[in-house]
């Protein structure tokens, strides 16, 4: 299988394999029972990579330990229980929907939005970022052990500023080399400085976990050489944030930096440290597009791509424009499970008396937020007492805060 992959790598994009595999080979399925398994993905598709990861979580033998490494094309991955409208600048995802007011379009092309199955915050993936996943039995699991393994891998490549911080992230200390002799402790480096005003360590890797009864999955990113560091903040800053109150886990932003290491070196080093930790010398098995053929992987992929999973898994939130000075028609929407559940509309001029407030404009109640493609269409006729320009201003505000997600995941990269 590995020989086939390397021979056909260049041709893969344009031709389908001659034999259509219905399911994974028996050898692949047998490997799921090996006590130590190491995989590396050749696919850049974030939906497929996350589905393969989930498949390995569910199907690998309960006592086994699994390593998976993958790289995704530019995409934003939000946590299981996060709010895409709060975390992401959804308008930027589809380049064709850019407002003319943006003077500097990021130029990244279409960026996928993916909700993963593990918890935690929002991250930006691209080709300069390598993702690592370790799946191990629940009873052996601690939050730090695999982050420490990755730090050892980095230090092996000469990155001695790397360490695990209290939040189980990997950071690069920015201080001067102190005179203390370096130790093997993965939680401290000679570059740490105790003063509070010293240069903050740069975060290079974030972690997230998924714990089931028998298996624990720990995955993390690793910023090696992303060319997009300066544009990422645009994507991860949502204009709606000041206007929203939401439940759910919010991302904790940290200053990030590149490690400046090649993907290949990092991957080899992590595989080596994994082998050392679990006393195994096996080779990594390649996984890739052929896994799409497998039923449960494909189903997982389809679920991740579905708008229902991406948007309807959002915990309850409400958005209100009361603090915005440019619009003078008050609007508040409560959204539960991605569906508009309640809200009100009222004009400020008449104060906050109940009489001037009307309920939700008809047609909005019970609507799935991600189905709304044009706020003008929704609100245009439902506020007859309000002048046309005020309604237009309101719609424009709504369009900025809750842009229609035209960049649906499954319309790209067929």
């Amino acid at each position: 299988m590995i020989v086939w992959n390397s021979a056909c790598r260049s041709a893969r994009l344009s031709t389908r394999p001659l034999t259509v595999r219905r399911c994974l080979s028996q050898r692949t399925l047998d490997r799921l029972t090996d006590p130590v398994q190491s995989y590396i993905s050749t696919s850049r598709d974030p939906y497929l990579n996350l589905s393969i990861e989930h498949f390995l979580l569910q199907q690998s033998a309960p006592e086994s330990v699994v390593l998976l490494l993958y790289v995704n094309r530019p995409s934003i991955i939000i946590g299981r229980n996060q709010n895409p409208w709060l975390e992401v600048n959804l308008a930027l995802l589809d380049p064709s929907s850019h407002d003319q007011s943006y003077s500097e379009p990021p130029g990244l092309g279409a960026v996928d939005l993916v909700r993963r199955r593990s918890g935690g915050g929002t991250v930006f993936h691209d080709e300069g970022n390598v993702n690592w996943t370790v799946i191990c039995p629940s009873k052996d699991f601690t939050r730090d052990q695999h982050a420490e393994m990755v730090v050892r891998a980095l230090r092996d490549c000469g990155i001695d500023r790397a360490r695990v911080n209290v939040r189980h992230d990997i950071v690069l200390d920015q201080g001067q080399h102190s005179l203390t002799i370096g130790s093997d402790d993965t939680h401290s480096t000679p570059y740490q400085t105790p003063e509070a005003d010293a240069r903050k360590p740069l975060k290079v890797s974030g972690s997230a976990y998924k714990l089931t009864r028998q298996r624990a999955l720990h995955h993390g990113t690793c910023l090696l050489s992303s060319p997009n560091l300066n544009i990422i903040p645009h994507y991860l800053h949502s204009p709606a944030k000041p206007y929203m109150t939401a439940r759910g886990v919010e991302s904790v932003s940290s200053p990030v930096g590149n490690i400046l290491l090649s993907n290949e070196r990092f991957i080899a080093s992590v595989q080596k440290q994994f082998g050392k930790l679990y006393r195994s010398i096996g080779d990594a098995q390649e996984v890739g597009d052929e896994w799409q053929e497998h039923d449960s992987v494909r189903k997982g992929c389809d679920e991740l791509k579905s708008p229902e999973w991406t948007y309807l898994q959002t915990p309850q939130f409400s958005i209100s424009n009361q603090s915005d000075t440019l619009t003078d028609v008050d609007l508040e929407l409560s959204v539960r499970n991605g569906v508009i559940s309640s809200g009100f509309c009222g004009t400020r001029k008449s104060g906050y008396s109940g009489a001037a407030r009307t309920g939700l404009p008809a047609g909005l109640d019970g609507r799935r937020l991600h189905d709304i493609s044009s706020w003008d269409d929704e609100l245009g006729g439902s506020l007859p007492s309000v002048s046309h320009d005020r309604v237009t201003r309101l719609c424009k505000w709504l369009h900025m805060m809750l842009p229609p997600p035209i960049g649906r995941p499954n319309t790209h990269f067929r």
Partner: protein
Amino acid sequence: MSLSRLAPRRALQVYASATAQPHNARPLFHRKLHASPRLDVVRPFLLADIGEGITECQLIQWFVQPGARVEQFDKLCEVQSDKASVEITSPFDGVIKKLHYGPDDMAVTGKPLVDIDIQGEVGEEGGVEESVEDVVRAEGGGELDAAELDAAATTTQERGRQHGSRQSKEVMGSLATPAVRHLTKEMNVNISDVQGTGRDGRVLKEDVHRHVSQQTQQTVPQQQQRTGLPATREDKKAPLTPVQTQMFKAMTRSLSIPHFLYTCAADMGAITSLRKKLNVRAEPKLTHLPFIIKAVSLALRHHPLLNSSLDTKDPKKPELTYRGAHHFGVAMDTPSGLLVPVIHNVQDLSITEVAARLLQLSEKARNNKLAPSDFSSATFTISNIGSVGGGVVAPIITEPQVGILGIGRSRMVPAFDENGQLVKKEELVLSWSADHRVVDGAECARCAERVRGLLEEPGSMIMGMR
């Protein structure tokens, strides 16, 4: 309370949490099936400490609703705490009574998450299929070979382990519901002593009661001899094991073959001394079986009729096919019963190679690692019961073969040498069965005598070797 709950239930001390509060105790004359007090106990399941000093986490989604029946280890809900999304599973069997939080609410560690009504025997009999059973049903669709069934049983065991649900005997000591376990404590019985007759060997209430009554019976007739399992004079119905099922089918087919038996005794002295000499350096040690196998192969070259296949699908037109290759099935006694893996192309193998193949196959058989290809295309079978014992045996032919050789145990017998002196001889009885529809007695006898000649004079085997 709903009328569906007719089975009795017991109060349990599963969680060291709030004080036990039996509520809704029923008066005894209501739906009485057993003369035991019935208590409905609803157990609050507390949100356990997830670690990392986390005091609360957000509930993402419920997988159950009030009224749903759950079994131990079923998924209840998914919660999220900063970076971790955690699946929470049910600690015991029961029926969901109340969810303490809605989706998106913050659940507090140490406080009740969900209330579960613990059920007794109703949970263990009804409803939910075991996932392992499902897999077996899916795999064993039609007629399977004994081996395939065996191999399938092994894979299903492995898959069941992989699926991670219902880990049965590996994870838990004895399978039993909490109600049954409580009963064993009440009756002062060790649950591992009780033979379970429920699904997967689960221990049921009846089993515990039966065990207790047996204990009282056994103290009386102590001089009576125990036979194997806990002394019970009851008949025990048991389903056929997969190997037995396969044997049943094959041997029922063999009933149509008219067997005749021809036995002869071979003097194994020469082979034994040859073996002794070779085994000084040979590793692993050679037994007489590889020699016999090779001798039969050499003889069958002169008597190809015994290596043929008889096709009687059309009773009016039986077809006899002389097989070119010698594929010998070698009957083996394994932990799961009788298996007959095949050594292919014996005519091309040397005796050492035959011995190595035998060892390989018996290893695989012992570890349940035989593949369907190991059982295919046998043309002749050799059944060595000599490892256990036996003199004359009457082995049964497996169709479509027409012959089989049974080997007993070699023993020392007194005999006369050429001078009329009494000497010790190592005698091994070879019992040949053949299908009298195509093989006549003389042909079989000639083949048997040829094999005997080869064994008594191993030098002649070398003459015949290719």
